[in-house]
């Protein structure tokens, strides 16, 4: 007979006899092990085995891995579970992955900074290896053999002269052992069977059948849905509210004013939206004349002066970087239940579960221990879900009505009232030698702080997160911050998305000005950067740098080392038509040890999509106090018909894993913009390269 594994576990029963299946990866035959009476009893009566907070082996031998980071589409549920599964010696497809609630047992649960795999590569492997060592010890004791004669594979422990023992029969024994009594060692890379091989997303089966549950899919018995009427211009507040018509809508149950707007609460979403349409609010105050064109004038004026450089030919260029919205596919939302029994539950796909927990406790006036924060899947994040604005609304409203409340931001709320990527104005100076090669540089810029992350309120922090100039040209970055007229926050790659794009566009401008080859110039300036140089050479080779391109086409290059990784991009654009289009983008990355090649490629695809989108028109502008854009109609994100071919080169590396989520955005955007410059002969004024910035 045959039995098949599934994600729930690998116990199958036939004819009353318990059969435990041990799936052995790596080409060995899959064996079905009959379990004897004693083992069957152990199976029935045994405890689960939970050597630490991340690993649980169930009685049926199935494994649950708890992932302490939020799945935003970057694939952490897959990559992090892979680390545990590898060391626990179980195939990934038998692992059930759970996203952790906010809980100090899991350490830092904030998801951001392209840091999840980097920071958890060792701890999660160790968590899995601890479980393996204890299970091996349990088997060795039962057999009366030394641990060293046993190996773990395929969810069981093996010995050359014994019938393999599936984990399921070892749980009670393993749980009784003292973890400190076993030696935990990590597998050497040559024994990896999961790490480094493409793994499909563990959530695919659910996503592709509609079973996956995102924040907006959370429904609670007796729950209400809230949408808010938000200020029609920046900073406006209600002078008066007439909720008569809104409350007359069937199923609308309450209207409540919060600091961020006026909430309409209803039994269902459609009724809440209908109620919001009928709400009459007289708004006043704020900045009804605010204009992003004016903001850019202020930023331009605030750019610090450049000091005099050494002797040589001066070269100067200025760039503006736009305000950007995150525009997550799933608008931000949160569900909260401040219950009468003193407990608080929050369901939200947040990048900051611990902050949400503290915030909910404070708002509801309860101890943190009374608050449970559960984290469903997120329909995109990009930094937006690091913030706690929507959870504040949900907790406050639930505290008022004492029922579960789901706050949903509509698309226009999300586009107009989010926390934006700051705008900036950059002036770069270089002094060129007689060949046109820069021998000195100065980058002066003015931008806004991140108002939602007050620690990002100093020029030092901007430099710490954005000054990544890796070329051998002496110089400095001078940052001036002026007060932000908007709510601002983290956006994929944060300040590097402004500073690096400007610097790489500038370097391309230097090359084109002097008739120099963009790649050769960069190569010459990359002294002491072997990883970056390898990436640049790999990208140029894969692209076929130097070959003749069709009329109207041109290529641009850019590099970055950041997040413990290195990346180089060569992009080809076609400027022969009415609108430029990206034809092909080659990205070579050295991200150290690759955990999941399919995931790394996907992250690069995503960064390129963001780069092309922001290069070719997506920006937030403000007129008469209001954000102009309100949906994907006027925030033109890349569509399939304009999507370039993306070729990803994974440069082999044994370095510790680096970050990848944010890595390719800035160089890809700069490479695309540089390609347009090369194709048209006109230096773009910033991003987007078409139309006006601001």
């Amino acid at each position, binding site marked *: 007979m045959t039995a098949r594994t599934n994600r729930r576990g690998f116990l199958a029963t036939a004819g009353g006899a318990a059969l435990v299946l041990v799936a052995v990866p790596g080409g060995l035959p899959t064996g079905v092990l009959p379990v004897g009476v004693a083992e069957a009893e152990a199976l029935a009566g045994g405890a689960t085995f939970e050597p630490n907070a991340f690993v649980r082996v169930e009685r049926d031998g199935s494994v649950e891995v708890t992932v302490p980071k939020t799945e935003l589409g970057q694939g952490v549920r897959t990559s992090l579970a892979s680390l545990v599964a590898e060391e626990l010696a179980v195939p990934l497809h038998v692992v059930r992955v759970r996203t952790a609630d906010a809980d100090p047992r899991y350490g830092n649960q904030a998801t951001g900074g392209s840091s999840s795999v980097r920071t958890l590569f060792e701890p999660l492997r160790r968590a899995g290896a601890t479980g393996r060592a204890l299970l091996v010890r349990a088997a060795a004791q039962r057999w009366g053999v030394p641990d060293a004669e046993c190996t773990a594979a395929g969810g069981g422990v093996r010995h050359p002269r014994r019938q393999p023992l599936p984990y399921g029969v070892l749980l009670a024994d393993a749980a009784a052992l003292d973890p400190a009594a076993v030696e935990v060692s990590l597998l050497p890379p040559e024994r990896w069977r999961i790490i480094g091989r493409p793994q499909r997303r563990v959530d695919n*089966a659910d*996503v592709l059948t509609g079973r996956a549950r995102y924040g907006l899919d959370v429904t609670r018995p007796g729950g209400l849905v809230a949408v808010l009427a938000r200020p029609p211009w920046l900073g406006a507040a209600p002078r008066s509210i007439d909720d008569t018509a809104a409350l007359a809508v069937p199923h609308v149950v309450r209207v409540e004013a919060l600091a961020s707007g006026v909430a309409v609460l209803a039994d269902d979403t*459609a009724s809440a939206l209908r109620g919001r349409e009928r709400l009459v609010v007289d708004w006043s105050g704020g900045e009804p004349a605010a204009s992003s064109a004016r903001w850019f004038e202020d930023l331009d004026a605030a750019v610090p002066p450049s000091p005099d450089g050494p002797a040589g030919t001066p070269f100067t260029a200025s760039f503006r970087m736009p305000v950007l919205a995150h525009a997550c596919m799933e608008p931000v939302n949160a569900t909260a239940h401040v219950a009468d029994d003193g407990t608080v539950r929050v369901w939200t796909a947040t990048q900051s579960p611990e902050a949400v927990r503290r915030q909910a406790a404070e708002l509801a006036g309860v101890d943190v221990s009374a608050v449970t924060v559960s984290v469903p899947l997120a*329909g995109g994040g990009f930094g937006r879900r690091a913030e706690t604005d929507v959870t504040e609304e949900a907790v406050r409203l639930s505290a008022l009505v004492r029922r579960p409340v789901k706050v949903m931001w509509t698309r226009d709320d999300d586009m107009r009232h989010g926390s934006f990527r700051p705008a900036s104005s950059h002036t770069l100076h270089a002094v060129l030698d007689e060949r046109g090669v820069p021998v000195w540089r100065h980058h002066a810029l003015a931008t806004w702080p991140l108002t939602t992350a007050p620690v990002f309120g100093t020029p030092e922090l901007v430099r710490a997160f954005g000054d990544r100039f890796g070329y051998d040209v002496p110089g400095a970055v001078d940052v001036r911050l002026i007060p932000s007229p908007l709510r601002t926050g983290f956006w994929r790659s944060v300040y590097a998305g402004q500073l690096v794009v400007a610097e790489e566009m500038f370097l391309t401008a230097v090359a084109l000005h002097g008739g120099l080859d963009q790649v050769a110039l960069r190569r010459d300036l990359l002294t002491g950067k072997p990883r970056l140089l390898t990436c640049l050479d790999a990208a140029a080779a894969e692209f076929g740098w130097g070959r003749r391109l069709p009329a109207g086409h041109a290529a641009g290059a850019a590099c970055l080392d950041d997040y413990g990784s290195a990346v180089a991009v060569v992009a080809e654009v076609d400027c022969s038509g009415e609108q430029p289009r990206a034809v092909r983008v080659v990205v070579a990355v050295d991200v150290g040890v690759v955990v999941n090649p399919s995931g790394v490629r996907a992250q690069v695809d995503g960064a390129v*999509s963001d780069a092309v989108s922001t290069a070719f028109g997506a920006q937030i502008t403000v007129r008469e106090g209001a954000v102009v854009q309100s*949906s*994907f109609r006027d925030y033109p994100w890349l*569509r399939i018909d304009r999507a370039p*071919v993306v070729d990803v080169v994974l440069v082999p590396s044994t370095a510790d894993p680096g970050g990848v989520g944010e890595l390719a955005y800035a160089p890809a955007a700069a490479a695309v913009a540089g390609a347009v410059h090369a194709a048209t002969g006109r230096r773009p004024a910033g991003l987007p390269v078409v139309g006006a910035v601001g």
Partner: protein
Amino acid sequence: MRIRVNGDVRRVDAPGETPTLWALRDGLGVLGPKYGCGIGACGACTSLLDGRAFRPCSTPVTEIGDREITTVEGLSRDGSHPVQRAWAELDVPQCGYCQAGQMMSAVALLRRVPAPTDADVDEALRDNVCRCGTHSRIRAAVHRAARLQREERDR
């Protein structure tokens, strides 16, 4: 009123002007179609109406009439539909939020055009936004699904 969803006749207790998306999600618990914009501008809710792609978010439920709605849940529960298989094989989803809509647009395309060209794919899927950048895998998956569908028919 009653509507036909994924082979069942379901009772909807909502005003006729209610967008079909909310009748499905809040009324019937059919959560596969996603809210992304409410104005037919993103495609996250894309489902089929008598086999043709439509946007439940901007179709009042009263307009459904006798026609059959198919959501992603109606393709197959076990992921065995050729489009689901192709999406899984090529590991398409990132955040996954748009993918039900992408797949339903692909299903509608493959009903009309069993062997689509790249231009056909562009035309059929360009109004489905993917914010994560899965476009090239989507394209490959549509072609793969077309092949799987043909193989299934030939068997």
